[in-house]
């Protein structure tokens, strides 16, 4: 007998959540989880800025090269040399050779000042692939074609690194969603069928997932992606990679869904539906599937970051996406060497957005996990 909880759960739910549907309840619970809501909001912002409008946010086009090879970040200045407050501007860059370290570096050229403006005109682009525009969130207001603003520095081809991170996010963030979508479609369908009917499908799902489990995971990823021919077009490679991620991911999901269906199938409400003559399809999709959805959503949310990371890691190792495709993984290729860290540490700026994405997904997933289980009587 649950001494402590017996009085609590039922009555509490009753008071505040009277006559609400399951999803209303979930929403009500989720809203109260501050970390989860924060995760959801941040994720929305991330996807909006990296997937929908990176062209607008980025000051330059993806392949906009300049002579400023490996230029360090140029901070926005508000004070001129005499310390007077001014409209924001950046200095020009000047090449200097450091005799001691035998390095070529860039230093601010205080003789050149370029004012920074919001909604500045710059490289042409198509917003959402539809609307031709040339306005960027910010940029330099100057006629000097050579002037650049590098908030996060420039890479080895003199391209603005901030712009590249913004563009690169699109592929990295989408691969997680796409891959997860495929995984869900495969895993849930096969899982439900396998759990409900058993038989050959069940055998196949079981043996396949067992085999995948016995196969070392990371190498399988790598071996499969290594098998993608180098001459394929980048887009094909991208989709192949998505399919590989989904292919390796569905087994686990199917197994979990199978387990859930197996337990739900013996619930008395499923038996009740059967006793009234409900068809198998109706039992599966009206009674069993909704019961698994909450878990599926949580699992899916929590495994998207894994997919994003897999892309990042594979591309970083040169086994995933390859240039000219720009993703966080390919950007990492330039950043993750001891030499790069020593001499161009700003290239590591690609790491924070990756971490932020992973963290927000985890926050959202954790919040959902609590919210989707409203009968648990927890917090």
């Amino acid at each position, binding site marked *: 007998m649950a001494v402590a909880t017996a009085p609590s759960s039922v009555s509490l739910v009753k008071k505040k959540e009277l006559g609400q549907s399951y999803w209303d309840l979930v929403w009500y619970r989720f809203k109260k989880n501050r970390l989860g809501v924060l995760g959801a909001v941040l994720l929305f912002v991330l996807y909006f800025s990296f997937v929908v409008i990176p062209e607008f946010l980025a000051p330059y086009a993806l392949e906009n090269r300049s002579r400023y090879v490996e230029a360090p970040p140029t901070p926005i200045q508000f004070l001129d040399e005499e310390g007077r407050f001014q409209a924001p501007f950046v200095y020009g860059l000047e090449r200097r050779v450091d005799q001691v370290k035998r390095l070529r570096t860039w230093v601010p050229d205080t003789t050149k000042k370029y004012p920074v403006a919001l909604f500045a005109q710059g490289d042409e682009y198509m917003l959402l692939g539809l609307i031709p525009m040339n306005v960027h969130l910010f940029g330099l207001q100057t006629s000097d074609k050579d002037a650049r603003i590098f908030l996060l520095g420039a890479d080895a081809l003199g391209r603005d690194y901030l712009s590249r991170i913004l563009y690169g996010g699109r592929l990295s963030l989408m691969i997680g969603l796409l891959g997860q979508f495929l995984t869900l479609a495969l895993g849930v369908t096969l899982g439900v069928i396998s759990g409900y009917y058993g038989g050959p499908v069940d055998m196949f799902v079981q043996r396949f997932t067992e085999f995948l489990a016995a196969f070392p995971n990371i*190498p399988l990823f*790598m*071996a499969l992606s*290594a098998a993608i021919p180098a001459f394929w077009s980048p887009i094909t490679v991208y989709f192949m990679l998505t399919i590989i991620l989904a292919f390796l991911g569905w087994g686990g999901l199917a197994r979990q869904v199978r387990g859930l269906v197996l337990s739900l199938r013996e619930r008395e409400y499923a038996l009740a539906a059967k006793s009234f003559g409900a068809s198998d399809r109706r039992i599966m999709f009206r009674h069993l599937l909704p019961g698994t959805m909450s878990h599926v959503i949580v699992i899916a949310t929590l495994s998207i970051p894994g997919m994003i990371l897999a892309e990042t890691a594979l591309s*970083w190792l040169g086994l995933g996406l390859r240039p000219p495709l720009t993703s966080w993984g390919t950007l990492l290729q330039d950043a993750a060497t001891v030499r790069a860290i020593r001499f161009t540490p700003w290239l590591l700026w690609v*790491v924070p957005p990756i*971490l932020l994405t*992973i963290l927000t997904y985890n926050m959202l997933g954790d919040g959902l996990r609590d919210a989707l289980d409203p009968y648990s009587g927890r917090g």
Partner: protein
Amino acid sequence: MLNYLIRRLGYALIMVVLVSFVSFVIIELPPGDYLTQKVEQLRARGDRSAELQVEMLRVRYGLDKPFLERYLNWAINFLRGDFGESFEFERPVSDILGARLGYTVILALATTLFTWLLAIPLGVYSAVRQYSIGDQIISVISFIGLGMPGFLLALIILYFSIVVFNLEVTGLFSPEYRDAPWSVGKVLDLLSHLWVPALISAITGTGGLIRIMRGNLLDTLGQPFVEAARARGLKNRTVIWKHAVRIAINPLVTILGAEVFPSIIVGSSLVAIVLNLPTIGPVFVDSLRKLDMYLAGTCIVFLTIMLLVGNLVADLLLAWVDPRIRLE
């Protein structure tokens, strides 16, 4: 029991053969082989005799033979202890792996020990003092660690040690000790490098363990037998450790088997690549990238063996610690 062992081992053998074959197929999938890559490199360098040289190598490595024959040859030699030759290093696979095995094992054991010794007590504390400040701090840290990919963390640590502290932390030894014979100084030097992978595993590896331990223990603490033990007049500490933790820790044994043994071969290869550690992981990743098939194949086979052995050991261990489980 013996029956069970024989069946499990037979099953494992089939699995190893299957996995090794499939991995060979997968490595075979990309068009061309290691040598086509090499030819291109040599050509790019303007080496005129490339074609001839490569043809010789092709015969030497048996790459001119059909796939199945190559696999069978390699598999039979494998049983004799000859794992083939690495194209990249032009040395026997066993030499390459053997040289790195020692460090890999040391690193795997050290990080595992460190992770578990840290995670279990923290998980127990977190569960026993549920919702206390300590629990919340541990929860937040483990939550972050859970999502933190090791190789990115390694990059961050590298950044701070190089750019901020100007410290050399890559590798396992400083240059002056790298080829020196073992001495107290060398051991100290090793320890001064070992903290980086240890720290990384502490952050990334403990998170999940702490969460699992906490969850399991909370479930167990709610069980009637815990209350019954308390009602017998046992000390709180005895109730928690002897009755609750003893049960809650069982599922972790499975994780131990599935993680520790494979990690001896490729324990966090990505971290090892970033930190330039002399372990098997980086070589393995590189061999996959370069289609160095005998090296890659050997690694995969050993990895599979380790995984299967790990699972078997975990199952045996579980049956040993939990009398409810019977092996049949």
